[in-house]
């Protein structure tokens, strides 16, 4: 059996992090292929339920990434998102879900290099954590 290849679900905003991911790709920066990206118009519309669902279904990590504070296309959606992530970090660890499987970052549209580095770092970290045991478990 080879090394565990984690699956990471990334909710990224259209205006900043998705654009950064695009830039990383067109710049041919090397990044591991472990991320399944979901483009949202804004991180402010990532309802906690989608993050919970992903983790319960066995995603090895969830990344939420949007514009830097002050740069949000919708003025402050990213700051609302930060509160929601804070909320989930209060709730999920109480049921034994590892807090390190939920990440939030700010990555601006021009920061392709930062995006590639973030993904490389996250994949390495999640590999070290090992697979999310819920993936092959029956969750009621």
């Amino acid at each position, binding site marked *: 059996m080879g090394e565990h290849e984690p699956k990471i679900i990334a909710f990224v905003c259209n205006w900043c992090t998705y654009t950064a991911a695009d830039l990383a790709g067109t710049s041919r920066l090397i990044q591991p292929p472990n991320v399944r990206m979901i483009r949202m118009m804004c991180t402010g519309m990532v309802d*906690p*339920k989608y993050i*919970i*669902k992903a983790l*319960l*279904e066995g995603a090895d990590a969830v990344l939420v990434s949007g514009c830097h*504070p*002050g740069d949000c296309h919708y003025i*402050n959606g990213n*700051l*609302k998102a*930060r*509160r*929601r*992530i*804070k*909320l*989930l*970090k*209060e*709730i*999920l660890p*109480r*049921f*034994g*879900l590892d807090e390190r499987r939920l*990440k*939030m*970052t*700010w990555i601006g549209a021009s920061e392709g290099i930062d995006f590639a580095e973030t993904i490389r770092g996250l994949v390495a970290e999640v590999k070290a954590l090992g697979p999310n045991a*819920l*993936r*092959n*478990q*029956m*969750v*009621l």
Partner: protein
Amino acid sequence: MAKTAKIEVKEQNPVTSLRGFLQELLGGGQVDGLLVAAHLPVKGSVMPVLVTDPQRMDGVDPLAPAFPINAAKVVSRLTRKPTGQRLAVVLRPCEIRAFIELVKLKQGSLDEVVLIGMDCLGAYGNVDYARLAGENGGQETTLRFYRDLPSNMRGALEDSEISPACKACEHPVPENADLQVAFLGVPMDRMLLVQARTEKGMELFRKLRLTECEEPKERQAAVAELVEGRRAYRDRMFEETSRATADVEKLMEYLGRCVNCYNCRVACPVCYCKECVFVTDVFDHEPTQYLRWARRKGLLKMPTDTVFYHLTRLAHMSTACIGCGQCSNACPNGVPVMELFRTIAAHTQRAFDYEAGRSAEEPPPLSVFREKEFSEVTGGKD
């Protein structure tokens, strides 16, 4: 700025005396309507009624140890648009706190409402109350419930105990009420107290020509003692529940009897969505999707998403949870929902320095933000 007056209790019957007071309030034209708990003509059944005729108040009994629904939801329904009429609503402390949450979510208004808050010793679960009141009669059950006050504050009758939510409730005295009806630490066989707590309350207090009196000295100590006992029970409950749900497997065990009926969500006064995502088709997946999941895991419990449902509800409303326990009351299978939600709510509310129902001025924590906060969430950057 509190003012206190006495309602004299005649023939050791606080129920009829309180009813008399409310009758005067409605009959005197101070309010156009009164929402208050009353015994229905059906045996063993207490529900809020909207009264406009003071002659029709025979069954009115806000002291009844029954808590079939959290009336914040009906007050929300009555106040979501202006009526030009004044409504007095007689509520338990947790109903007021739930209503405050709804007002902040723009699902109700305090403008035309006078909040009359009752001291609260707790109430039985629906099943226990129906049995007790069925055996002994509704009003008799109320009188027996308070018979041993002020010395015995447990409110226990025979073999039945008040619901766990009430045992863990540290808010037996209403907050944010305009007028408060107090009986804790008061010789209830002789008197009840009415206290004006706000400008609105003062105005009514004057118009009702109540005679002022001193609050009995014993009251504060009696309340403090009750609250202390409740806190101790609550903290034990937090510990036990945390231990019983410490990982996903234990959580599954804890929720094991849940059948996804969503009664807890229907009964919850602060589950504020007009249409819950769990009745929409958002998670109504393609049949082939279920088969794929089953194939991956070997077997799949149907319906899916029990744990997911409860975790989502925790994320959506735990910052507004006021701990009334209607979720547990509504559960057909005895899942200790209240214990779980209060335990998590204590953490989520503390995280945002928020307490549900404390103040109509404090915005709900997920409706606001600060530019610099929680930098640990984004790896120290903000």
